[in-house]
């Protein structure tokens, strides 16, 4: 009965789009022959396309609003699939085998972009501690990444320290920086926190860009050594493979640590802090300590990722640590589903690898990216894989759920 209404609405939306895109899609000035070309057929495409899309969109939204209760009650099909032991055991084994033999069957180039993707997985996992677990919307995560990368590059340049010594140093410095940033923003939440952290990241980047004596400015630091492998000299192809395995190991470590943190006393405190700050404090949780722990632990992974990044590319400059990177990492977390580890994995691989493989569409990359984000927020705001709560089993006496 409401179909007519929806058709009408879609019609107006289509009309609006025709109007909007008229100047760019229909009119074209041929500057060589000094004539205006009217491409009326494009008007038709835009009209029909937007009409159909908006109609489908409305149908979908309607269906979803009808079943909104059941969605929150039962896990999504994807989630059920992931929880199904018959499926996830073999899948996990397949993924593990694929991960292990990946560098042996694919080219140097493939291994390199996969390594980059894994760095983003690590960054996503780290930011997930702050945003997903503790609810601290951090738009300046890239600052911690920069601290990690620069601490490796600079300490190596000045003191000649090696990769394995500086890996923990970079992580600790990043964690320390996380606490320094965390202190002034303790009182802030949500949007305000996002703005201030964004400011801190920009400060960090500007310092790196302008303080030539300290960071060598925009020209950056080159000839950063690759990680050593028991004193054996590796050629560039071998070291790319070595980097790949290192990152796989670090991602596994990150997953292990985050899983354990999540289901721990601290993880619960983060969760409670995200839900309601006052109630959380009234339950005896120290807000300051809990927030700073989240900042520090999140930053630690950015620090690791930074050191690994510097070692992988052997060259860093401030251009690698712009706001765009922060936005990218945050999109990974949001697209993947806040607090969900599998989600971060899928989203990071999608966001980093798809543009590499879809070079054909490289002109439209940002448009597609934006459209994907918007579509995601409309249709699946909880992310690709929504987080679920742990269930505890008890021996229950047969009880009825009365309202009491």
């Amino acid at each position, binding site marked *: 009965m409401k179909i007519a209404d929806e058709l009408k609405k879609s019609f107006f939306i289509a009309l609006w789009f025709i109007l909007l895109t008229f100047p760019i899609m229909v009119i074209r000035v041929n500057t060589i022959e000094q004539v205006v070309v009217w491409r009326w057929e494009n008007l038709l495409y835009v009209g029909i396309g937007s009409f159909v899309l908006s109609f489908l969109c409305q149908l979908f939204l309607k269906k979803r609003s009808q079943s909104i209760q059941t969605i929150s009650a039962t896990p999504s099909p994807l989630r059920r699939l992931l929880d199904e032991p018959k499926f996830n055991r073999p899948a996990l084994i397949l993924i593990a085998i694929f991960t292990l033999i990946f560098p042996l069957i694919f080219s140097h180039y493939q291994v390199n972009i996969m390594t980059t993707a894994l760095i983003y997985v690590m960054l996503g996992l780290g930011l997930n501690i702050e945003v997903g677990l503790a609810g601290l919307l951090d738009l300046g995560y890239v600052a911690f990444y920069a601290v990690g990368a620069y601490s490796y590059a600079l300490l190596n340049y000045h003191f000649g320290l090696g990769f394995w010594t500086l890996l923990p140093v970079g992580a600790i410095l990043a964690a320390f920086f996380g606490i320094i940033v965390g202190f002034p923003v303790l009182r802030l939440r949500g949007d305000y926190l996002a703005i201030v952290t964004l400011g801190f990241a920009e400060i960090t980047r500007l310092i790196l860009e302008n303080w030539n004596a300290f960071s060598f400015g925009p020209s950056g630091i080159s000839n950063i050594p690759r990680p050593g492998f028991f004193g054996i000299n590796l050629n560039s192809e071998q070291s790319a493979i070595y980097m790949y395995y290192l990152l796989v190991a670090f991602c596994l470590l990150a997953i292990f640590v985050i899983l354990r943190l999540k289901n721990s006393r*601290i993880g619960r405190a983060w969760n409670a802090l995200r839900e309601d700050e006052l109630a959380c404090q009234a339950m005896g949780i120290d807000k300051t300590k809990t927030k700073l722990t989240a900042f520090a632990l999140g930053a630690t992974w950015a620090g690791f990722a930074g050191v690994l990044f510097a070692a992988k590319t052997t060259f860093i400059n401030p251009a690698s640590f712009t706001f765009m990177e922060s936005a990218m990492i945050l999109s990974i977390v949001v697209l993947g589903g806040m607090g969900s580890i599998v989600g971060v994995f899928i989203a990071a691989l999608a966001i980093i690898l798809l543009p590499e493989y879809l070079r054909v569409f490289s002109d439209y990359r940002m448009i597609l990216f934006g459209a994907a984000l918007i579509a995601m927020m409309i249709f699946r705001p909880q992310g690709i894989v929504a987080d679920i709560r742990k269930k505890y089993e008890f021996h229950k006496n047969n009880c009825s759920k009365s309202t009491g």
Partner: protein
Amino acid sequence: MDNVLEIKNLTMNFGGLRALENVSLEIKKGEIEALIGPNGAGKTTLFNCLTGVYKPAAGDIFIYPPQGKPRRLHNLKINQITALGIARTFQNIRLFGGMTVLENVMIGRHCRTVAGIAGAILRNKSTRAEEESIVHESYSILEKIGLDCFVNDLAKNLPYGAQRRLEIARALATGPFLLLLDEPAAGMNPQETKELEDLIYRLRDDFNLSILLIEHDMKLVMNLAQNIFVLDYGEEIARGTPQDIRHNPAVIKAYLGVEASA
């Protein structure tokens, strides 16, 4: 005297508004006392001063925990006061809606447990034992309060009355000697209110509590409280047993706004 709480001449201002003026109040061990008054009388403000949400402008608060040293509450953070053994519920329910019922209660155990980052990551023997004890203690509190059927449900999906009780369960998990209940019966029907009354009695005995409650349901207050304090415009206008308060002209005036005929 064996008071567990003494508030002396507490004063609290919000800008030019005096929310509390020279309020004094004592609570004896094992007693249930009620704080009543018209809307805006300063009852919740008193709770907030007591739990560290607000810093009072003047006055002292002393606590005498049954186990432990007497202590003046001054410049303490909210969580420190909770750790000292004062737990509260909120007037407008403030549960962690996205967490399960059990997890809500487990959060309450936070200040009685110690596992840190290293413990969480390594998951050593003592951490595992602590985690297990948190789960079991939380579950037994839920059993006592009659919410054990809801263990794995999200808190926000509970019926209203059960949410109110979950707030109490969560507060109990912090191991308090003094429980502050802010309008526990708000929005409950008479049947639920009656059950709440029995529950509060039972909890006081089971957990060796002293209880201070804010409540508008006069029947509940008269049945439960041994002593009633009445606030109006931030000042104490009466105190005494339910019998005294029922006939106190100042109280009747504050509530009904007319001079009681003498």
